[in-house]
C-alpha cells in the first residue's frame, strides 16, 4: 500500500514527473497551536499548495450570546482569545456599557487597563515562547515565557480568583477592588517581565540561526496587509502605525503616554520583533496606570438588577492582542442582544495563510503559521 494514490503514481510515471504529496498538518500537531488543520501540498520540500481547515473549536459564541442575558454571556467571551481573557471580556463589557450608556468609575477603568495590558503581555509571551519552539529551540524559549506567564497568572488569581478565564470585569466596573498589596506585587511582576523580555531578546533576537530563519521571510507590504484585513501586530509589522488604543481611544488610554512600535518590511522577523517591543510598551502603560490610579468605587452605583437595553446597535473596536477585536451588538429591547458578532483578528489574519505559505519550504510554513499568532478559540468562535 503506497502513501500516494495509485492513479497519480501511474500518471507521474508516464510523464517522467514527480508526484506532489499532500501532507496533513494538524489538528493534532505540535506546531498548529491548538486544533487548526492545514493540508499542505508539497513538491519535495517546497510547499505548492495549502488548504486551511478551521472550525474544530466552534462553540457558537455569537448564538449563545444572543440567547443569554448580557451579564451571563461574559464567561463565553473570555474564552475566545483564551490567552488574554481580560482583553476579550474588556471588549465585551465596554461594548455593552457603551450601548446601555453606563458610566464606569475611573478607578475601575484603570484597573481594567492594567488587567488588559497584563493579558496582552501574557499573550505575547505565549507567542514569543511558542514561536521560539516553532523555530526549533527545544522548549527553552517556551519555558522562559512560561515563567513570566505563571507570575502574571498568579497575579490574576490574587485579584480575580481565577487564572485563565477570570470573568473579573462586570458591566459597570469590576467585580471587586484590588487586594491591598497589589501595587507592590504588580511592580515586582513587572520587573520580572522586563527581565523575561531581556532574556527572550537575548535568546532569540540575538541568535544568528533565529535571525537567518526569520529575516526576509514572506515580507508583506502595507497595501497587501490592509487588503488582507490584517490588524494588530501583523499590520504594524508592515510599518503602518495603526493601533486602536491610539486611533479610536477607549477607556483611559488617552491619558497614558505610550508608543506604537512598527516594523520595517512586515516579514516574520518584524512580526516577532513588534510583539516583543509591544510588551515593553505595555509595561510602560501599566506603570503609568499604577501611578495615576485614583481611589474610589470600582463598580458603578445604581446598576439595574436586570440589564435591558432599548433599540440600538454598536460596533466597539478594541485593540486585542492579535489585532482589532471588535464586538458588534444589536439590541432590540429585552435582556439579551438581538445580534452579537465578533470581529476576530486571528480569523482575518489567518485568511492570508495560503498566500503567505505557498512557495516557501515546509519548515517555513510552520513558522509562518506561528508568526500569524492565531488563537483557535478566536478563529472558530
Amino acid at each position, binding site marked *: 500500500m503506497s502513501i500516494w494514490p495509485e492513479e497519480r503514481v501511474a500518471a507521474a510515471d508516464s510523464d517522467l514527473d514527480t508526484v506532489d*504529496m499532500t501532507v496533513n498538518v494538524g489538528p493534532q500537531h505540535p506546531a498548529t497551536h491548538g486544533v487548526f488543520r492545514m493540508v499542505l501540498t508539497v513538491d519535495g520540500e517546497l510547499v505548492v499548495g495549502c488548504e486551511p481547515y478551521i472550525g474544530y473549536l466552534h462553540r457558537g459564541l455569537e448564538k449563545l450570546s444572543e440567547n443569554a442575558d448580557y451579564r451571563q454571556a461574559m464567561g463565553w467571551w473570555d474564552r475566545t482569545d483564551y490567552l488574554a481573557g481580560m482583553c476579550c471580556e474588556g471588549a465585551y463589557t465596554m461594548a455593552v456599557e457603551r450601548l446601555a450608556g453606563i458610566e464606569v468609575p475611573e478607578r475601575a477603568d484603570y484597573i481594567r487597563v492594567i488587567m488588559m495590558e497584563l493579558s496582552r503581555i501574557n499573550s505575547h509571551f505565549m507567542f514569543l515562547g511558542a514561536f521560539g519552539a516553532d523555530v526549533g529551540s*527545544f522548549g527553552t524559549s517556551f519555558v522562559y515565557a512560561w515563567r513570566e506567564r505563571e507570575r502574571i497568572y498568579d497575579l490574576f488569581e490574587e485579584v480575580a480568583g481565577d487564572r485563565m478565564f477570570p470573568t473579573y470585569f462586570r458591566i459597570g466596573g469590576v467585580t471587586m477592588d484590588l487586594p491591598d498589596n497589589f501595587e507592590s506585587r504588580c511592580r515586582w511582576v513587572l520587573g520580572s517581565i522586563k527581565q523575561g523580555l531581556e532574556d527572550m531578546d537575548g*535568546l532569540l533576537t540575538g*541568535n544568528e*540561526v*533565529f535571525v537567518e530563519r526569520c529575516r526576509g521571510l514572506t515580507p508583506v507590504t502595507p497595501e497587501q496587509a490592509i487588503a488582507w484585513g490584517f490588524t494588530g501586530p501583523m499590520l504594524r509589522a508592515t510599518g503602518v502605525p495603526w493601533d486602536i488604543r491610539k486611533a479610536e481611544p477607549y477607556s483611559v488610554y488617552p491619558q497614558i503616554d505610550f*508608543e506604537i512600535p*512598527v516594523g520595517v518590511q512586515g516579514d516574520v*522577523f518584524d512580526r516577532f520583533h513588534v510583539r516583543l517591543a509591544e510588551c515593553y510598551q505595555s509595561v510602560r502603560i501599566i506603570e503609568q496606570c499604577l501611578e495615576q490610579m485614583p481611589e474610589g468605587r470600582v463598580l458603578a452605583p445604581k446598576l439595574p438588577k436586570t440589564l435591558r437595553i432599548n433599540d440600538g446597535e454598536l460596533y466597539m473596536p478594541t485593540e486585542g492582542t492579535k489585532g482589532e477585536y471588535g464586538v458588534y451588538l444589536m439590541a432590540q429591547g429585552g435582556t439579551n442582544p438581538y445580534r452579537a458578532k465578533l470581529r476576530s483578528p486571528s480569523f482575518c489574519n489567518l485568511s492570508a495563510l495560503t498566500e503567505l505559505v505557498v512557495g516557501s519550504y515546509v519548515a517555513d510554513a510552520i513558522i509562518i503559521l506561528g508568526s500569524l499568532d492565531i488563537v483557535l478559540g478566536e478563529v472558530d468562535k
Partner: protein
Amino acid sequence: MSEFPFADPFFGLSWLDAIIRIVIVVLVMTLVVVYLTYGERKVVARFQMRLGPTRTGPIGLLQGFADAIKLLIKEDVRPRNADRWVFEFAPYLTFIPVFLVLVALPFAQDWGVRNLALGMFFVFAVLGLNIVGVLMAGLGSGNKYALLGGVRAAAQMISYEIPLVVALLAVAMVAGTLDLNAIVGMQDSRPFILIQPLAFVIFFTAMLSELHRAPFDIPVAESEIVGGYFVEYSGIRWSMFQLAEYASLWAFSIFGSAIFLGGWAFPFGEDWGWGWQLVLTLIKSLIMIMLIFWVRATLPRLRMDQLMSFCWKALIEVSFALLLVNGLFLYYDWPEPILAAVNWVGAILFLGGIYLRAARKPSTKNLVGSYKHAEVPNP
C-alpha cells in the same frame, strides 16, 4: 607491557577475548545510554530553570530504567501501509553500525575491543551505514512525515560526511597514521586541538549534523515533522532508535576526544594506570557531550536549504583548504608551531565570520519608527 592487564587476550583465546570485550562494551554502553538520557534531561532542565526527573530513585537516578521498562512493555505498533520487513529491520540497521563503531574506539591504552590499524577509516565506513537504516525507516513507515524525515536525513548525513571526513583526514595527515590508538598516543604532551583547531570546529559542526542534534535536527524536527523518520515507531523499536542516537552521541564524543582532546594520553601519557586513562577518556567525552547538550538547549533549528548551503558553501571549502595547507606544511617539513598558528588564524577567522554575521542583530529598544500617534492607513 605487563602493567596493563588488558593488553593480552583474556584466557589466551582471541575469539573468547573478543566476545568478552564486546559484551563488556555493550553492557557499559547500554548503561551509559540510560544515564545519557537522564543526564540530558537533567542538564537541559537546568538550562530551562526546571528540575528534570526527581521522582524515580534518589534525584531521579532510576528514571532511565523506568523509561526502558515502560518502552519494553509497550505495544509494538506497525501501521497497515508500512512495508513490513523494511519497517521492522530499520531500527536494527541504525543500531548495529553504532555498535560496530565501538569496536574500534580506544578507551584506554590497550583497552578497546580491537585496536585496528585503520581504525579511523573503519569508523567512517561503519558510520556511513547508519544512513541505510534511517532511510529504510523513512521509506518503510508509510508515513509522509517519516518520508520527509528520512529523505532529509539522507541528504544531510551524506553531505556532512564530506567535511567530517576531510577535517579528520587533515588531522590524520599530521599524525601520519589512521590507527586511533597511535593517534592518541602521540598526544601525550599536546592534544591535536591545539594544532588543528579549525579541524575541530569543522568536526564538531559536522558531528552535530551527523547526530541530528540542534541546530541540525532537521530530520527529526519535532515542531515540523513530529519526529521525522521514527514517527511511526513505538515501544521497543522506538527505543532502538533512541539507543542508537545516544550510543552514537557517546561514540562520536569518544572518537572526537580521542582525536582532538588527547583521549587517554593527555596530560598524563602512559605513566598512569589504565584506570586513570579510562577516567580521562570519560571526562573528555563528557565535555564533548555537555557541549552538544548546551548547543541543543540554546539554538533554534536551521532550514534544510540553509543547512545544505552552509555545508557546501562553507564547511567543505574550508575543510579542503585545511587539507591543502596541512599538505603544504608536511611536504616542505615546516615546523609544527607555524602550522598550529596558521590553523588558529583559520579557526578564528571562521568563527569570527560567523560571529560578525550574528552581530548584525537589530535592536528592540529603538525599533525603527516608533510612533506616538496612530495614522489612518490610506493606501
